[in-house]
């Protein structure tokens, strides 16, 4: 189809108008211990995106799945934090199979290679009215 043909097709106008109010968005808030999962190909991702990176299916209605056991890749403890965030803020970069994420750790005792899982219910930012779990070493859980 050429550009000019397409401009005259019956479908061109509605195809250019995105969903309005009330439509499901790709940037849904889900708990820290859950990842998105593509309902077609099963690919998982943590940081919300518009489409499945593998098959391209819209993520608006993607399922979410719990993250079970991961492995610490790197850690840091941040002393200078935003006004509504605890100081020090213990953080870990952790890999859960194909999903990799950075999350708050319950304590500053994690090291690369440690097995971790999410546990507990904490306000990660005081200004936000929601709670999420933090990473803990599997042995301590």
């Amino acid at each position, binding site marked *: 189809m050429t550009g000019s043909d397409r401009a005259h097709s019956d479908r061109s106008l509605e195809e250019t108008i995105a969903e309005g109010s009330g439509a499901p968005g790709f*940037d849904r808030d889900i708990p820290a211990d859950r990842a998105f999962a593509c309902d077609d190909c099963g690919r998982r991702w943590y940081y919300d995106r518009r489409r499945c990176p593998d098959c391209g299916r819209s993520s608006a209605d993607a399922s979410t799945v719990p993250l079970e056991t991961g492995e610490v890749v790197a850690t*840091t403890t941040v002393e200078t934090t935003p006004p509504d965030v*605890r100081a020090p803020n213990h953080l870990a*970069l952790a890999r859960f199979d194909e999903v990799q994420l950075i999350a708050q750790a319950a304590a500053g005792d994690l090291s690369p290679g440690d097995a971790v899982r999410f546990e507990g219910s904490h306000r990660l930012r005081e200004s936000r009215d929601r709670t999420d779990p933090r990473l803990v070493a599997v042995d301590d859980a």
Partner: protein
Amino acid sequence: MGSNATDSTGVRVAGVGMTPFESDSGRSLSDLAAAAAERALDDAAVDPAAVDALHVGNALAEALDESAGLANALAAALGLDGASADRIENTSATGASAFHRGVETLRSGVESSEADTVLVVGAEKMSAGDTRDVTEAISRLVHRREYAQGITLPSFGGLAAGAYLDRYDAPREALAAVAAKNHGNAVDNPVAQFRKPIDVEDALDSPVVAAPLRLYDCCPMSDGAAAVVLTRAGRDDSEDRTGPRVAGIASATGTHAVAERPDPLSIDSVRTAGERVFDRAGVRPDDVDVACIHDAFTVLELIELEELGFYETGTAWEATLDGDTALDGELPVNPGGGLKARGHPLGATGLSQIVELVWQLRGDLPENRRVDGAETAFAINVAGFGNNSVCTVLRA
């Protein structure tokens, strides 16, 4: 110099100017921008009325309740009658993105078939907010799921620094050596925010910000402005156009969420923008005589030098300890002090890199600041912790 060097943009930097970078300048954002712009126009011997387009880089004016519509206010203040004007924002790479836009304006000629003079100004007044407000404003540029965890840019720096030292079995002193080098380079730079030399011990003893990074591993918050005047390079030498040539410019985005990078020590946007700019300019990393590298955190200078191909992966720390990146080394890196010591007013930083490199290429600097005989210069300005990178190659 490689034999394949090209002049891919046809643009020259006709003049440069900047204000000192300071913790608190006591001047308004507009005043800082105008002061740098006038210096650049004077340096280029260009009348304000001859400017065809103005591009203004600024990241935080609205977030810090300073002002809105900065480009239009500046055009009027400078007397740029009828010039087109806009404002560019790309977080910490705002300055380089504004420079990129200026180069593209001249290349495309979209503003006017006659357009041949462009003014690019980058300015930031980070003292307009208190430290926590600015930290908060900057932390908003991370992915929202990262934001929910309270993650800030130094958080990424701490994670990457820990991973770097761990994987390459590098000593903590290697990071401190980057800080000591860049602070040393700033001592004789009159526009630098910090002009006091520090040694490795000072850096190792400073307070922890995001372990293992300490205060001296992190760039400051700054006020300041930098500006350049760009012109089309003449088609032949008979035309009265002088100034270093923009041999290549390129930018690239990478992952937004830092954790999605398969390797925490790999930054795709840096690698991609670097490959593109070297290809466009027809030079190799070996051809570069002097470089300004985005050292928002000491570890970033090392990672970027490796991602750009200046050093093999995992070896930039040894090169730094060996003095290769010192002012008198094989590849002088951040001769003006870098973000670390010159300062990092977000909108101005990328342009201050260009100003420093133009000074180097024109031979303007005193002997103790100069990279002798520099002909090819490189700059990289990075947004966020690698969300977007802008690379430039200049040739004398």
